[in-house]
């Protein structure tokens, strides 16, 4: 109930004069630990990791004049989060790297070990608008559902809540294309929710990857196949 407290204090009206936004998102993992089977030590490590999830902040910067956004996890400020914790969280949330939307196109810029990939994603989510409303902070939000079109959770159903009063079709991770800013996304095992919205008068400069740096999803998949083969062989030498 308290998660939207900060959001409630922010100005609920959007005006075209305020063309730039910074949205801080947080996430929570919703897995029933009581139903997990397995060794207690493993369960403890897993529980510790997923509880750290709420310490992570994600940032969505939007330059609406140029129709560009970038979403990424902010640098860690809490040193109690270990690499293992992050790894476990990452398996569930799948939000590594930066997600750019530029003029209606989506680009995922991330590292596979030490190899940087900038992938242009062709597919778009085919959203279905649902006649359901709820308030998030001071914003009245509408519901939409769709299927994940990219990444580890491809094909899974997601639920989005967007604010038509902020008519910017951006959102967290690879989610965009609704007639309002997405303030909450419910994925299979987690929720990503807006915690703070800042309307900025100053310009936000977003540098999207250059055209000649981009590769297709197909190319990225072929690189992943090679890297996975190397990973499988890692312990055999």
């Amino acid at each position, binding site marked *: 109930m308290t998660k939207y407290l900060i959001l409630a204090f922010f100005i609920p009206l959007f005006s075209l004069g305020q063309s730039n936004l910074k949205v801080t998102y947080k996430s929570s993992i919703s897995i029933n630990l009581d139903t997990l089977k*397995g060794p207690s*030590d493993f369960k403890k490590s897993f529980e510790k990791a997923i509880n750290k999830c709420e310490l992570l902040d994600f940032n969505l910067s939007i330059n609406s004049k140029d129709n560009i956004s970038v979403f990424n996890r902010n640098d860690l400020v809490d040193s109690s989060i270990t690499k*293992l914790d992050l790894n*476990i969280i990452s*398996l569930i949330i799948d939000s590594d790297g930066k997600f750019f939307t530029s003029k209606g196109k989506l680009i995922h810029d991330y590292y596979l070990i030490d190899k940087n990939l900038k992938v242009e994603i062709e597919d778009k989510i085919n959203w279905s608008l649902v006649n359901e409303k709820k308030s998030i902070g001071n914003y009245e939000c509408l519901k939409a559902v769709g299927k994940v079109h990219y990444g580890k959770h491809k094909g899974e159903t997601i639920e989005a809540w967007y604010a038509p009063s902020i008519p910017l079709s951006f959102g967290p991770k690879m989610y965009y294309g609704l007639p309002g800013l997405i303030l909450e996304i419910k994925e299979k095992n987690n929720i990503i929710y807006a915690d703070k919205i800042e309307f900025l008068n100053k310009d936000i400069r977003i540098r999207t990857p250059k055209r000649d740096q981009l590769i297709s999803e197909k190319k990225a998949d072929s690189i*992943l196949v090679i890297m996975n083969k190397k990973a499988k062989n890692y312990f055999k030498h």
Partner: protein
Amino acid sequence: MAVVVFVGSSINLNAHQNVIAQEDSASCFEQAHYFADWIGSMFEMNALDRLELILDYTEQCENQN
């Protein structure tokens, strides 16, 4: 450290529990493999994810011992 190669990711949970019950004899590296199998039984994971998980678990376990 003994290097044990586990092929596949379908080791059953009883095997995990047996290893943990004999924690003294399971190295961090061995535990890491079982941990990765356990996580892999719940979430989709490719070989790279698994490798990173094993290396990070091993490192954390060794730092704690």
